[in-house]
């Protein structure tokens, strides 16, 4: 961003490291970059230099929707397993997911509802050329996925997951095959509340089962590199890791773990890594936040560590073919604003989230403007055309990529109609994500307090935008963006500006693997002992938990069976 360091530091609270600081200390410097913690360069890691602190059969990185099943399956296969997780709790983003698992193939719940399904139909649906979520998938991976659906369903049942409703069909599926877990009943072990965040009903039972079976879970440990025998050659020997604090900052207590059989990367994808996500979409500059990244920083560290020893990416079209849930319009007034990612003060993640944000019930109550004070689309719409407009150039010759912050502008009457609360803990004023002023010009002058608003919004421009919009309300037609008969002017003071920048959601591409989830290098060869699963694995665009669980289990089984 065209923004100086001093301003960026000023915008961050003293206790809270900035994304920039985080990236610097984590060494996540982009494709080909190396994890540089503790002076070690992963790309040049010499196995002979490593003093191993521990030795196990299988090391799993990340205790989310793919890491937990991987760890359990490896343990079921007789392996000793260590699971490293950088957060102070398990669950990754899966614990704040809806808990819906898109697996069918004729499972018991489908039978009970009279739904006919089969592995062949799962394969056919998710490889069909007529559907954009299926067209670009690696058919070998989808075949394996389809063939493992029923076994994965049984695996989840055996490990304590309980099921609620069956829903669908959605996305490329042609029959209902989405089953939703029952929310975990222990409220003190939830992370997000009151938003149907049933993902707890998947990851908590798996955590209990993993611990019962003897998986060693080390929390607040971040993998910093994968160690391979030789430079782009030989088998994978283990990982280096470091303890981190609750802001994921290293404490410099290192841990090197030798993995006799394999290392499974289940690190959640790349959405929180600005440089890596821009490999796929250069528009995604720093102002876009990735869903759940404050809870589980899915910042591509698995991909980067794997690429540093020779791994390749796969099926990258899936990230940008505008078929999947890659971006979201979000809630208002909070930095990490995924529509269903609401953290309330009772959440253990609230200290990072700082506010719960406000949901817009009727977008006719606001206008959305760019950092330049201008509207850009019909606010009542949400689709990829909306997001393309939001991400389009906003006119600063010094910043051509990214669309800049998007602000919802509204008045006192809108607050009344929406019954919004405009103070703590609902919106983040202190952090610079919600502002209030007596006039629009005064409102615009405040926005530079936001860490991503790199230049002042011209107050006259914002006022002109509102004057014109208000004339559309009187005239009955939005002459600029054809918003349906706008009913409400933005007129009564005080006026508000709330962060409404789109929020990134799924990572839909990642590392190349074979159908056993073994990582493949740029020459098409297996990297022995390295696995990639979940949103860090490329090749199959399917939203949600299913591919994470299915392939996590496959990787765990395969790693445990290695000689």
């Amino acid at each position, binding site marked *: 961003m065209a923004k100086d360091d001093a301003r960026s530091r000023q915008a961050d609270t003293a206790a809270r490291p900035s994304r920039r600081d985080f990236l610097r200390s984590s060494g996540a410097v982009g494709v080909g970059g190396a994890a540089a913690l503790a002076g070690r360069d992963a790309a040049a890691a010499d196995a002979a230099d490593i003093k191993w602190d521990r030795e196990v059969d299988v090391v799993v990185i990340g205790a989310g929707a793919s890491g937990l099943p991987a760890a359990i399956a490896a343990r079921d296969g007789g392996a000793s397993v260590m699971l490293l997780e950088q957060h102070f709790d398990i669950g990754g983003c899966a614990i704040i*997911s*809806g808990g*819906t698992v898109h697996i069918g193939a004729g499972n018991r719940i489908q039978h009970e509802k009279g739904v006919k399904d089969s592995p062949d139909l799962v394969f056919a649906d998710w490889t069909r050329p007529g*559907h*954009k*979520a299926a067209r670009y998938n690696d058919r070998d991976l989808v075949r394996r996925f389809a063939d493992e659906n029923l076994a994965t369903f049984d695996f989840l049942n055996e490990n304590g997951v309980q099921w609620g409703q069956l829903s669908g069909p*959605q*996305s*490329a599926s042609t029959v209902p095959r989405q089953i939703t877990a029952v929310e975990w009943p222990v409220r003190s072990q939830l992370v997000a509340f009151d938003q149907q965040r049933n993902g707890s009903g998947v990851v908590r039972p798996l955590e209990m089962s993993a611990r019962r079976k003897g998986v060693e879970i080390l929390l607040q440990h971040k993998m910093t590199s994968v160690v391979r025998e030789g430079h782009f050659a030989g088998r994978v020997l283990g990982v280096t890791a470091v303890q981190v604090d609750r802001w994921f900052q290293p404490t410099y207590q290192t841990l090197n773990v030798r993995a006799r059989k394999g290392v499974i990367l289940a690190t959640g994808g790349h959405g929180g890594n600005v440089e890596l996500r821009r490999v796929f979409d250069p528009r995604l500059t720093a102002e876009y936040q990735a869903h759940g990244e404050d809870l589980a920083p899915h910042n591509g560290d698995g991909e980067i560590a794997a690429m540093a020893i020779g791994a390749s990416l796969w099926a990258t079209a899936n990230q940008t073919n*505008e*078929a*999947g*849930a890659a971006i*979201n319009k979000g809630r208002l007034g909070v930095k990490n604003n995924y*529509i*269903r990612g609401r953290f309330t003060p009772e959440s253990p993640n609230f200290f990072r989230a700082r506010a719960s944000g406000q949901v817009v*019930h*009727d*977008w*006719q109550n606001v206008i959305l403007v760019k950092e330049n004070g201008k509207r850009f689309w019909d606010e*009542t719409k*949400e*689709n*990829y055309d909306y997001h393309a407009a939001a991400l389009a150039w906003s006119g600063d010759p010094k910043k051509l990529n990214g669309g800049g912050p998007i602000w919802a502008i509204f*008045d*006192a009457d809108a607050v009344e109609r929406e019954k919004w609360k405009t103070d703590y803990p609902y919106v983040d004023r202190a952090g610079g994500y919600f502002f*209030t*002023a*007596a*006039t*629009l*010009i*005064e409102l615009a*002058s405040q926005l530079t307090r936001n860490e991503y608003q790199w230049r002042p919004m011209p*107050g006259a421009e914002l*006022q002109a935008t509102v*004057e014109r919009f*208000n*004339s559309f*309300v*009187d*005239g*009955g037609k939005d002459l600029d963006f054809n918003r*349906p*008969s706008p*009913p409400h*002017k933005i*007129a*009564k*003071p*005080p*006026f508000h500006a709330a962060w409404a920048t789109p929020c990134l959601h799924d990572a839909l591409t990642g590392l190349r693997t074979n159908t056993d989830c073994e990582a493949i290098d740029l020459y098409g060869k297996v990297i022995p002992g390295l696995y990639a699963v979940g949103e860090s694995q490329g090749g199959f665009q399917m*939203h*949600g938990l299913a591919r994470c669980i299915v392939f996590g289990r496959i990787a765990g089984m395969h790693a445990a069976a290695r000689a």
Partner: protein
Amino acid sequence: MSLEGTALHRQEIELALAEPVPEEVDAGAQLMLAIRIAPSGLNLVGTLFLITADDEVRTRGHLPDLAGEDRDIARIAFTAPERIGEFALRLIIPEHEREGTICREASLSLRLRTRPHVTSLAVWDCPAPVVIGETFRLKVGAQCSSSCASLPGCAIEIHDESAAVLAHAALGDTPWPGTQALYWAEIELAAPGREGLHAWTAKLAARELGIAHSQASFAFTVLADAPAAHLVTVAVVEAEKRTPIDNAQVRLGARRAATDERGLARLAVPGGNHELSVWKAGYEAPTSTIEVIQDASVAVEAVLLPVEDPDSYWQG
């Protein structure tokens, strides 16, 4: 008193800015200067200081207790000149004797530009439509970037498309609720004499103010309509189940109303052709044109849009 020639110890003092001062501030703005005094540890409480602007003394005071970790920062309040321009400021601690030590004169120079206060307006509570031949009222508020107290009593003018002044009123002295210093006035106006949209402007007559203020205006539209002649009842129902939809926004010609819990909106309109549109979040309803020649009832079917799972938007 001259201190030259005595045997007293001489102390040099250096002054520096401990925190940056903006290059440009509102005329008459209250500033707090943070001055670092070296060496630290000097006891200068109560020492005379002067601040000059273009060699004219603007502030004369005595140093407060020093703040900061090293007790070396003096925080000094200063009022910027009310005139617009660029000024050479000089903070001076004159030579003086203290506890047997002669403290030599110390000074610090900095430049400061003053700018007019930025004023801005808001216009609200303008009814839509207004009825030809009747009067109506709206509110105009004015805010100053320095929240200065000179706005109450200032004149607000309403101009029409030809810049003719239609009405004026003086800003009151009580800020609008929810704001710190938005002073406002309610203004009565005669509705335009012809139907349709009229582009009017509210202006603040800033020339009356002591400190220079920027000009402020706010453009708004006035929608004028003929007197109502007929009552049209619009029933909004969900297309499939025929259930009433409440709180739908209905617009018929220039008139608006929201449906009640029975899905009914009543709109008094002039006779003639009027466009009928309905908005309710989550529904889609067609826009049509109806001819009103008498009291009438109209039904609008709104189609419920599928509820999308926000966790999996736009798949397919």
